[in-house]
């Protein structure tokens, strides 16, 4: 499917989704509550078959925390981007997709480690690089007077 | 002080002085005679034992150091490198410098290690080495003990070094060491069989277990030529399984540098580590000497049937040189094994022994017996 068809396909799943056709990928913005269900549909539907999660990025948008999923289908060769964001900075919760794509396991641990986003239903959510006394360094409000030198 | 030993000494040199290089029993016999004449038999034995002990100690150190150097040079040349080249010309004093370094190193006591066993282990390995070295005929008459069951003795003694390895691994309180030691146990127990059977093939051919007689029997031709096909097979099997027996690559499962860091001697430091390290090389020397003695005629020169002139030239080279030469050729082959092949896995190692070497060996022994029975050997 090309991007147009993808857009229509996603529309057919849920009318209200916010879809943006970027230069490269079709970008779908989801609420955290919708994410798992739609990711599962995209993974399993015959005509979509997004079986390859090639990137999972946690983003701090300043106000919100978000996660970006880059999906590709090794069968059909098309790609799609899912974006989700939550405004809860203290206790951000997003559903884990690690049972759909095994690779999400490590990716989500990394995002948890660096941004503090908790993935519910993750089998093994522990800090990955840093130990538990660290903050979440990729957040924009992270302060570290010793290690971060600003010119 | 009586000086008549000089007379007996001189009388030993009825021929030119270099004759002792062809028959050391002239020298040893003369010394023995003189000692017996000058002190009581008890003291004779004591003095002789001390002298032999000191000589072996020196021999051990020299051979060990030289082999370490040789290994480093050989592997360097194989790997397109120069190897040690800083200390002395061509780096020949490198291993001595290493030894000095190891002597000065701190011996680290390991927490929770079984200190008695931990300390004993390197000595067991070393003592076993000495015991094996004693029975090897180095040249005509240069022989510490000439047992009538020499081969049997060497087999029995050399398989004891696994005790040292097991103790080292067990007492170190390190998981890597333990795995290494356990591997080594399984390995040596099974390869002992192949070595034994390969040597039995030759014992059948020679009809004796006494090493000096085995060498003497090869005056007319080395056993590897005399026994042709079964002897060659036995030789190959012996070289392979002795490489495994001494824990060298590609069978260095017990050390397995890339898996177990250093295997059973991971926790050793300083001179105790040096003992293990030296023992590995001396072991290599021992198995190579046995191979040379059993298959390649020991110190016996290379003779071809009735070519008198050729045989004369070969006889001119002293037996000791022949022995050293043959031993080092085999050592070189063993080194080449190590620096060419990837390491086997422990189960493959046992597969190789039980599925390939052992059956072939058994059939080989039968063939050899048949050959000897029919008189088809040379």
């Amino acid at each position, binding site marked *: 499917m090309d991007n147009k068809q993808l857009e229509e396909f996603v529309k057919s799943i849920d009318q209200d989704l916010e879809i943006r056709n970027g230069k490269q990928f079709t970008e779908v913005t989801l609420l955290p509550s919708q994410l798992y269900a739609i990711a599962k549909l995209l993974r399993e539907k015959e005509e979509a078959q997004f079986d390859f999660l090639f990137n999972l990025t946690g983003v701090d948008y300043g106000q919100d925390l978000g996660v970006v999923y880059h999906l590709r289908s090794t069968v059909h060769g098309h790609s799609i981007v899912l974006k989700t964001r939550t405004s809860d900075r203290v206790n951000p919760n997003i559903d884990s997709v690690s049972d759909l794509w095994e690779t999400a396991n490590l990716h989500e641990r990394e995002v948890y480690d660096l941004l503090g986003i908790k993935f519910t239903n993750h089998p093994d959510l522990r800090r990955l690089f840093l130990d538990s006394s660290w903050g979440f360094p990729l957040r924009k409000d992270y302060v570290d007077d010793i290690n971060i030198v600003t010119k | 002080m009586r000086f008549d030993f000089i007379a007996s000494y001189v009388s030993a040199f009825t021929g030119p002085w270099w004759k002792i290089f062809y028959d050391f029993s002239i020298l040893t016999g003369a010394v023995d005679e003189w000692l017996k004449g000058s002190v009581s038999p008890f003291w004779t034995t004591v003095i002789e034992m001390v002298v032999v002990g000191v000589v072996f100690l020196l021999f051990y150190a020299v051979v060990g150091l030289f082999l370490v150097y040789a290994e480093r040079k050989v592997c360097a040349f*194989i790997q397109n490198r120069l190897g040690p080249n800083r200390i002395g010309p061509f780096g020949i004093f490198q291993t001595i410098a290493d030894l000095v370094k190891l002597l000065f190193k701190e011996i680290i006591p390991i927490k929770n290690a079984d200190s008695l066993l931990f300390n004993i282990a390197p000595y067991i390995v070393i003592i076993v080495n000495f015991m094996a070295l004693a029975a090897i005929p180095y040249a005509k008459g240069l022989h510490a003990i000439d047992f009538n069951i020499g081969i049997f003795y060497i087999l029995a003694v050399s398989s004891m070094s696994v005790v040292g390895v097991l103790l080292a691994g067990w007492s170190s309180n390190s998981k890597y060491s333990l795995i290494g030691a356990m591997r080594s146990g399984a390995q040596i127990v099974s390869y002992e069989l192949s070595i034994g059977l390969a040597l039995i093939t030759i014992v059948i051919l020679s009809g004796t277990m006494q090493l000096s007689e085995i060498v003497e029997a090869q005056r007319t031709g080395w056993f590897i030529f005399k026994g042709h096909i079964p002897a060659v097979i036995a030789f190959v099997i012996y070289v392979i399984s002795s490489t495994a027996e001494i824990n060298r690559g590609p069978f260095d499962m017990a050390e397995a540098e890339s898996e177990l860091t250093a295997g059973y001697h991971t926790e050793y430091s300083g001179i105790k580590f040096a003992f293990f390290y030296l023992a590995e090389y001396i072991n290599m020397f021992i198995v190579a000497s046995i191979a040379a003695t059993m298959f390649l005629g020991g110190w016996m020169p290379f003779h071809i049937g009735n070519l008198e002139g050729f045989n004369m030239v070969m006889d001119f080279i002293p037996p000791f040189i022949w022995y050293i030469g043959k031993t080092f050729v085999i050592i070189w082959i063993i080194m080449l094994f190590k620096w060419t*092949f990837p390491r086997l896995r422990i189960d493959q190692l046992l597969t190789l022994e039980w599925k390939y070497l052992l059956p072939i060996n058994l059939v080989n022994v039968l063939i050899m017996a048949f050959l000897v029975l029919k008189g088809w050997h040379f």
Partner: protein
Amino acid sequence: MSNISEYFKDVFNGVLSLLKGMRVTAGYFFKPSAIVTQKYPENRKNLVMFERFKGEVVMPHNENNEHKCTGCGICEINCPNGTIEVIPKSIITEDGKKKRAIDKHIYRLGMCTFCALCVKTCPSNALAFSQKFEHAVFDRASLTKQLNKPGSQLMKGVE
């Protein structure tokens, strides 16, 4: 029967493959001309580094002790690690104008990652890489270097 022939085929092929490997290694053993080791401190005299080798950043001076650095500070802006620090001063030129010039060009070798952005972006080509690669020192402070030589001046004609 086929099992037995298979068995011996395995043995034969296995031994053959081992011998092939040993031929290569033994071949190198008897071929000392293939040795690639360089004896480093001995060959120091005729050791020539490639012309573009990024050893360390230097400021070439000509025979009159003149360099090309105008003190504009572009290298400092471009440096990703804060390796370079330009301390400018203002001088009064012959025709009586005030002008910005370099007082000290500080270069911290210990922080440099040799990305070549400073050399690349310098508008007056005042910086270059030297081929020196022996950087070990006993005192970390000596890794901080002043690139412009004492008493040096701006080259004529460089703006």
